């Protein structure tokens, strides 16, 4: 395959960036999007140019490290992570726009790499449970009904890739925060911090400069893990409940 790539190049956090055009040849349809970028970078290195910087880790779609906006869509045209997106979903001769996540709370570090530590600070503010440390507890000590376990697991699937923020026209982190809040708030293990968790995590989210939610639904459409949009309603419910309890 032969492709024209327009990639956002930016040398540092405070440097101006711009879209730069590259022609790449010899792309196999079986390559992942990241392998295609590796291929481009090898050519750039051979030519003595600076390779394109991008985040990646497991390349199995489970770590949440990779992520870029491809043709205006977070993680590209398929509902998966960028590492699991394959070049067979593009056609020979395509022009592909590749940009970093865009949000005030996710400043660009270099090229396609953004600083997502705002997510870490949101998790740090309430994404934990109080449990005695030491030996692992007996597995049946705390009974969890199956539907509750299913809901918790559905939300625990969030890998914190940031696609929701990138896709949201308002740069809002509501879907991410709701996944983290609902995951622990439905479980008995999360019950002791149920109220403080939602208040603190929403507070941390607001403090990071994410936008407000206008329920456009773009986040849930982009989410590679299928976190559902009603999760945001569930978090709002938890928030109102916590406020009414006065904690």
């Amino acid at each position, binding site marked *: 395959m032969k492709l024209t790539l327009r990639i956002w190049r930016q040398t540092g956090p405070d440097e101006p960036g711009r879209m730069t055009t590259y022609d790449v040849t010899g792309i196999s349809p079986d390559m992942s999007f990241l392998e295609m970028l590796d291929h481009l970078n090898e050519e750039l290195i051979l030519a003595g140019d600076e390779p394109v910087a991008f985040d990646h880790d497991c390349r199995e779609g489970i770590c949440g490290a990779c992520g870029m906006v491809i043709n205006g869509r977070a993680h590209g045209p398929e509902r998966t992570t960028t590492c699991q997106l394959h070049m067979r979903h593009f056609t020979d001769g395509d022009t592909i726009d590749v940009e970093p996540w865009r949000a005030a709370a996710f400043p660009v570090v270099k090229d396609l790499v953004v600083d997502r530590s705002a997510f870490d600070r949101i998790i740090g503010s309430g994404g934990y449970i109080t449990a005695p440390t030491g030996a692992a507890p007996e597995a049946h000590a705390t009974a969890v009904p199956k539907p509750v376990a299913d809901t918790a697991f559905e939300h625990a699937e969030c890998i914190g890739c940031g696609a929701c923020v990138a896709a949201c026209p308002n740069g809002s982190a509501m879907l991410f925060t709701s996944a983290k809040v609902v995951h622990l708030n439905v479980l008995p293990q999360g019950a002791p911090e149920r109220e403080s968790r939602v208040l603190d995590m929403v507070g941390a989210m607001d403090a990071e400069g994410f936008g407000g939610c206008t329920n456009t639904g773009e986040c849930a459409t982009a989410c590679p893990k299928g976190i559902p949009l009603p999760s945001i*309603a569930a978090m709002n419910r938890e928030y109102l409940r916590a406020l009414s309890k006065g904690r």
Partner: protein
Amino acid sequence: MAVTGVAMLLFLVGHMLGNLKIFFGAPEFNAYAAWLRTIGEPVLHYGWFLWLMRLGLVAAVVLHGVAAYQLSRRDRAARPAKYAHRRQRASYATRTMRWGGVILALFIVWHILDLTTLTVNPRGQAHHPYENIVADFRNWYADVFYIVAMLALGLHIRHGFWSAAQTLGANNARRDRALKALANALALVLTCGFIAVPVAVMTGVVS
């Protein structure tokens, strides 16, 4: 946004149903309009209910607008750099919430000047709402503005009702489809109900 929106929506349902009384003729419609001033008597003085209602509605409109302004400011600040690859996001109703809201705000100003204070009404006879409405909708520009505003209202409610359910935590995976259907139904019924009046005047059903 959600609380003030739902309050205004409840008012609109009553307002639309009241408007439809125009199809029963001038005496009944004018008597209905006069009755609105006597609600709450003898506890409330004549006309007090209407004024309390107006006070509540103005507060709802202003708070709704202020909240929309604050939310928009915050949302724009959260996405300072735009994407080079532009594409349409979300549904038409969702994308037009802000400008649709502006159209509705302008409409409300005209609507009050037209049929409450009668400042810009072509007939402008107090306590004769039926005759004022008929005189009004014989002008094509009043019909166009009214119908455009009601279409904007339908779109606003289509996204707004479901969005309010999300904000207030009333939505969940099971109710999601039903709430969206209800939002569509409310938008359709209110738009058609309101538009029925100028259409009836234009076609001569009401005269």
